[in-house]
């Protein structure tokens, strides 16, 4: 085999965690290599070694037959390795175009940036990933999925020999994934080698040649994908089978309407929307990237201003001007952007969890550290967050474990209605199953749950009802009996295909 990249006994140790140990792996030139593993298995750490962000503590890496020891991300780029990291790294206050071309801004005389060339090149790149947005838009105005697409477009703007994608599809919906896969296939035809990490096991068969599974920092095995099935992959990853992934619980009784939204209007340009969720119900929210799902939830929660609309909780109208009003009235919003909006990255796990309700762990304004630690440990155990201790900074947790912390903080608050925007983003299949069970427990406890997800099979597995957004409008409501992927997707497209 002609190996473009080979790792020999690579190890990486962090204080409190062995992230990788004795990993030996060869990536063949031109192949698409899938890397799988549970949250915290060491996938991203492996990628960061390639990126020059971390250096291995032991072992060696060879790229193109040469010893490869990048000290900085710049070294990696010079070697022809491009990486789309799991956590987004765009500069929020620059435009999309500037972000795309940051390392190589088109210039005119005297080093002045050539704005025209910049924007026209950006348009072309965005078109390739299917993002129909003015490249002069500031990145901070984008949703997470759109940022993800910008990151991908950025990686594509350079010729690379090895392209690494760390969970690129965690927030994408089927059409964007489709487009990404056709790009991957095209690159592959051009001879580019690709390393691809994902927790969406169904999708990897379409593009992958071989698969490597990591568990607790060790390499479990490397196999040809051909002939393997999803259950095989699951078994390799977590060492057991997962029988019924979603575990739909038909026995849960639905109660009164928990939350009713009537004619919610974000601004003059967007249509009014209405929906409701009952106690004990899981309501799914489907739609394409940028269809206004997240924005609607944020407006409802008071995170963004809204123009108009009636919100009723438990049958009573409530005024929500800011998130604190929403929380006071018993609403939670788990945001899709965990890094920017969900977490206090440099603070420890326990303080992240209790921030939603410090009253529960304090008396007379004094924090009771014991009670706080006990509450945090409880939730960390319940969600099986993999962390050295509850005093570890959230920044150093793996992506999926960070996601669990965001969920934990709202479970700690324990509000009567939960809005979950991409609750399983980047969470491994075993932990996903645990989160689903937890949601069923919440539903059984008569909470109302709104679940926004780009993973349509997940919505169809978990929800009693699905409402579909298309261009900021709710275009349909599908009861469980009528769930059908094609039908829901065609609804999601509806407002985009019609003139």
């Amino acid at each position, binding site marked *: 085999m002609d190996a473009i990249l080979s790792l020999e006994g690579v190890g990486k140790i962090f204080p409190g965690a062995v992230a990788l140990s004795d990993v030996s792996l060869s990536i063949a030139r031109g192949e698409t290599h899938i890397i799988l593993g549970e949250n915290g298995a060491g996938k991203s750490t492996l990628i960061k070694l390639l990126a020059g962000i971390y250096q291995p*503590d032991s072992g060696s890496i060879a790229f193109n037959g040469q010893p490869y020891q990048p000290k900085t991300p710049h070294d990696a780029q010079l070697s022809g390795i491009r990486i789309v990291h799991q956590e987004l790294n765009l500069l929020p206050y620059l435009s999309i175009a500037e972000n795309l071309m940051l390392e190589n801004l088109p210039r005119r005389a005297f080093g002045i940036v050539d704005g025209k060339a910049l924007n026209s090149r950006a348009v072309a790149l965005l078109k390739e990933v299917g993002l129909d947005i003015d490249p002069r838009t500031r990145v901070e105005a984008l949703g997470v999925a759109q940022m993800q697409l910008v990151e991908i477009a950025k990686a594509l703007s350079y010729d690379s020999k090895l392209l690494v994608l760390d969970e690129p599809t965690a927030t994408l919906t089927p059409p964007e994934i489709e487009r990404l896969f056709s790009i991957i296939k095209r690159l592959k035809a051009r001879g580019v080698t690709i390393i691809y990490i994902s927790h969406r096991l169904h999708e990897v068969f379409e593009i992958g040649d071989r698969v490597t599974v990591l568990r607790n920092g060790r390499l479990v095995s490397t196999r040809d994908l051909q002939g393997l099935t999803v259950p095989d992959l699951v078994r390799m990853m977590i060492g057991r089978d997962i029988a019924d992934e979603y575990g739909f619980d038909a026995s849960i009784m639905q109660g009164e309407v928990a939350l009713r939204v009537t004619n919610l209007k974000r601004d003059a340009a967007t249509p009014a929307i209405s929906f409701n969720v009952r106690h004990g119900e899981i309501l799914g929210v489907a739609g394409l990237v940028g269809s206004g799902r997240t924005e609607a939830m944020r407006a409802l929660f008071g995170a963004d201003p809204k123009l108009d609309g009636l919100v009723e909780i438990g049958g009573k109208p409530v005024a929500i001007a800011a998130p604190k009003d929403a929380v006071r009235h018993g609403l939670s919003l788990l945001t899709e952007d965990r890094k920017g909006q969900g977490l206090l990255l440099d603070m*420890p796990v326990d*303080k992240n969890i209790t921030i939603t309700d410090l009253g529960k762990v304090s008396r007379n304004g004094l924090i009771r550290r014991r009670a706080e630690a006990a509450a945090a440990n409880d939730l960390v155990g319940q969600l099986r967050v993999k962390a050295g201790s509850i005093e570890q900074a959230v920044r150093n947790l793996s992506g999926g474990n960070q996601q669990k912390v965001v969920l934990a903080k709202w479970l700690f608050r324990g509000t009567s209605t939960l809005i979950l925007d991409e609750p399983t983003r980047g969470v491994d299949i075993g932990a996903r199953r645990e989160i689903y069970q937890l949601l069923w427990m919440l539903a059984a406890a008569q909470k109302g749950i709104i679940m926004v997800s780009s993973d349509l099979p997940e919505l169809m597995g978990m929800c009693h009802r699905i409402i579909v957004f298309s261009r900021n409008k709710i275009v349909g409501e599908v009861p469980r009996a009528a769930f059908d992927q094609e039908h829901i997707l065609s609804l999601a497209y509806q407002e985009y295909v019609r003139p």
Partner: protein
Amino acid sequence: MSETSQPVAAAPVSPARAKLLRFLVRDAGVLLALVLITLFFSLTAPYFATSGNALKIFVQIAINTVLAAGMTFVILTGGIDLSVGSVLALCTVVGATVMIDESLSPAVAITLALLACMATGAVCGFLNGWISTRWKIPSFIVTLGMLNMAAGAARVVSDNSTITGLPQSFVDFGNLIIGGFLPSIFLVAVLVIAAGWFVLRFTVFGRMIFAVGTNDEAVRLSGHNPDFYKVAAFTISGLTAGIAAMVYLLRLNIGSPIAGVGYELNAIAAVIIGGTSLSGGKGSIIGTLVGACILQVLSTGLQLLGVGDNFKPIVIGLVIVLAVILDAYRERLLRRIR
């Protein structure tokens, strides 16, 4: 990299050890620096290691420590307060004016002066915070404006003159050295630091100050009002400027519209040297106390060594820059330990 090349960094650290290391790197570092600097001057500078000099340092440190205590709150939330020096000036003239009112008995006058100082400072601080959050203006700009306004107000109140003639009992208290080693005004500074430490470490409010500085959007979306905590931090900074003004009156016995020029920079320097990050969310008020000590020990030590007034600021400036460099390095170390 071979396996043996980094044996220390590579060993996994147990939570307890990580905690100890974290303490050593974060808090003990500055303390160690203070000890070393003190040791250095004790050995090299004549008269440095005398009890008289130690007392002098304790006295000189008090004002800056009090200012820096409030400044720590502001910087922890990610803001900055440039106005404390001239707010202090305003408070000294307000306080002195109240105190020399002959219709009041000394005890009443002193109490009223203290309240007036604290109220004046708190109002200035509140305005800083309210304006910068209400109109989303960087606190750098707002407090720069307040710096000028308070300085002007101090001139107006004092009619551009120095106010003297404070009650004798007040002056005596300022000169008091408790038990022969603890100057009364240093005690005030220590009490302020202790109160700040308690609030930041044990209260819900203190927790929120750190959280707001770490990620105010996440705090907002968790159902809180981050602006409340920012305004509160500025109010605290104004309040401590008022207390510092009382300390100033105790020490110098005059209210002066030109008091406090440049004090804000010393306060900021103490906070930064003490390891609080200018971007907010990280730091400690004990560090601030140590930072203030380092600044004063340096200043006194250099003077005793005969370093001229022209060179002294150069050295102190270098130390501040060095502290920030060390801070960046310390951040990197801390990330590896957590």
